[in-house]
């Protein structure tokens, strides 16, 4: 039974990675939010499994916090934002999607190479997943770079945090509770600030295209 559960962590990890790729490929913002929510669900599930296997109670709490934030609160906020701002599509990415996907594959290979030596040292049950977690972080970063609209960038930022969280859970059975609470709070504050920011961009430029921000540069 526990072996099966241990394998299920790898499954969730793969789900996270696939979702990260899906997010890179996705241009509809509404779907992007759904994907982000799904990623949150997978993360919660993985955390619960690790908590059950290692018997560390504080991981239950962090799973609950993650659920409340990343599955419920932030998606709702994002939904409200896109309804209020009336953005559906991210018109164009800076690179086309197949190129981005190829870059993503390179990043995944890089991440696995990187995580290999570390994973061999780790004794944690989910040591094989560190590479995936790292890949998720890098993929989300890539997404932030290639997207031209503010909302997908924010989602990229949040998804990067998902990857980090997963890395922490998988490799070291979670960070200390106080750190996790701090990060959760940071993410919440970050999303609020970014929300205000998005409304401001919208007011200023009548568009959410962040390329307008180039005008702010001082010559």
């Amino acid at each position, binding site marked *: 039974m526990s072996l099966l559960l241990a394998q299920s962590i790898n499954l969730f990890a793969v789900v996270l990675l696939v979702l990260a790729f899906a997010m890179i490929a996705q241009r509809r913002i509404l779907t992007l939010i759904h994907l982000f929510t799904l990623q949150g669900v997978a993360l919660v599930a993985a955390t619960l499994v690790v908590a059950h296997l290692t018997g560390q109670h504080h991981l239950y709490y962090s799973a609950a916090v993650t659920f409340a934030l990343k599955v419920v609160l932030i998606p709702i906020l994002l939904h409200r934002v896109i309804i209020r701002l009336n953005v559906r599509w991210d018109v164009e990415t800076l690179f086309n999607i197949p190129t981005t996907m190829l870059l993503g594959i390179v990043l995944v290979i*890089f991440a696995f190479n990187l995580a290999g030596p570390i994973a061999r040292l780790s004794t944690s049950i989910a040591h094989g997943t560190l590479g995936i977690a790292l890949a998720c972080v*890098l993929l989300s970063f890539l997404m932030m*770079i290639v997207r031209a609209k503010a909302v997908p960038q924010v989602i990229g930022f949040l998804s990067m945090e998902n990857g980090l969280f997963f890395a922490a859970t998988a490799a070291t059975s979670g960070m200390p509770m106080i750190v996790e609470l701090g990060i959760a709070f940071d993410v919440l504050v970050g999303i609020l600030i970014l929300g205000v920011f998005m409304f401001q961009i919208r007011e200023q430029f009548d568009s959410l295209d962040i390329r307008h*921000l180039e*005008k702010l540069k001082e010559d």
Partner: protein
Amino acid sequence: MRILDAILIVIAGWLALGLAGIAVLRQTSLVARVLFPAGAVLGVALAGLALAALFSAPQTTVLALGLPDLPFHLRLDGLSAFFLLVIGATTVGISVFAAGYFRVGEGTPPGLLCLEYHLFLASMAMVVLADDAYAFMVMWETMALSSFFLVTTNHRVPAIREAGFLYLLIAHVGAIAILLCFGVLQANTGDYTFANMRAQSLPPLWASVAFLLATAGFGAKAGIVPLHVWLPEAHPAAPSPVSALMSAVMLKTAIYGVLRVGFDLLGAQQWWWGVMLLAIGLVSALYGVVFSAVQTDMKRLLAYSSIENIGLLFIGIGLGVLFNSYGMTALSALALTATLYHVIGHALFKSLLFLATGSVLHATGERSLGKLGGLMRHMPWVAWLSLVGVLASSGLPPFSGFVSEWLLLQSFLFTTGLPDSFLNMLIPVVAAGIALVAALAGYTMVKFFGVVFLGQPREPRLAHAHPASPLERAGLVWLGAGTLLLGLFPVPVIIAIDRVTQLLVGSGIADTVRAHGWLLLSPSTPERASYGPLVFLVVVSLAVLLAVALVRKLYHGRIRRAPPWDCGYPAQTARMQDTAEGFGQPIRQIFEPVFHMRRELPSPFDAKPSYRVTIEDHFWHWLYLPVAQLTERIGRLVGRLQQGRIAIYLLYSFVTLIVLLLVVTA
């Protein structure tokens, strides 16, 4: 209660006055009539306590201020007591003057000004008390910042803001050098108390590095060439009491720093340090006085004159180092006595002159010499007291400037005893340089006094110049009296300074001086040289009285008043007087290569001929502008990183992350 504790209470009192200023931010009369005079009273207390401390043993204390585990170490010894005395005695006059000077509409609200002013005073006092590098740097920076805000009191004027930033920049460059100097002095022990630095004996190379850093760092604050450019900008920009405080007292904290590091913290000195200081001092003194002679703005003139005096002080220190490095401590003590005498003398007469320009400025609203004149009739107090300052500044007896310059030249006469023939030949050149500086300083001061106070008013509105207020006069009288007393009674002063030189070089000239009584000052033997200021004063006064009496008796009886031929002056107008430019013209001509001069001469056929000359420092073009251009070029190169696109910025982070990860795996 120990003296040190009492002094700390005085300093705390200044801080409290500053905070009280914040409480009554905009009530000008309350700030001016209550807080500033109270600050002056504390200044008297500080001077008295410092005088007592000068004649008692060193005291130390540890203040648990600042960071945890890093308290302020304080120490009150002869050197700090002497500089506290200078600070206290000078600020009394300046604070009293400031009470009558600051009015509504000086830019910064008066309460805030009061805070900055008293913070400045407190930080200067604390600088000389500090006994570890940490406390010293904190106080040094507080001093720089509070004076920066004081300089930019009229911060709405762009030129004043620029002057302030220039000052701040050079002050910080200097502070970095001082910090590095302390870093060398602690000799890898990690203990930054001065007690530890005294205990270390550095290898000669590192000792020289420390001394060079100290010279550069403190020199930036003192205004030695080529780090002097901030002085002529910042002094005119600041309100007069502030310029007085900066020129008279703040520059002296830099002298204190050089003495503290050079004589106290560094053990053995090397002879070439002295030669270096002599060279720096001579260049600064000559440069300062030559520029001073051609200025047409009275505060710029005084600022350049401060550079000259700082040069003289550096010469004195250099000579002290030179003698000390050859073990001739008695002569070193003589040179240092001259230096310290000049420190207090300059503090008093330069603040007197700056404050006098303040009064003139308030009375006429004019700073340019070309538009002043004939003010002696309207402001007799200011004029007569300025005359005292001017005479002292020119180094004429019986005022303080003469005593210090005379002592300095006396110590030069002993340089023939140095065991190095090369030095024996070169050092008389410096002495000759000092003589030139003194003569030019006299020339400059004649120009300053003559153009501002004598002759006829150059502008009609000068006829309505109102005399200085009683408080302003009181401040000037205090400083003028101090200058006169310093000139008339040098022997007690030298006995006080002896405590400092005993501390610095283990020798002093008090015994020699005391042997000849208090009337006659003789630093070595009376056969060699002696000076009796009171005798001089009596003789000069008698001679003047006699001359006046004789002239009245012999000449006045024969006076005839007749109109027929009036020497071609039927209508004598103010335009016929010698102007500041005209008076400075010979100097401008002689020292032409020193200036970066731009002249606009009118053509003979011009209907409205106009003449303009601007004089700039060569150092702007030689040193500062190239540095500024280099900085800008680097800035532009770095600026290329700034694309303004979020994707690019993210890419920077991304690439950095990848590279770092690669480095980690490799």
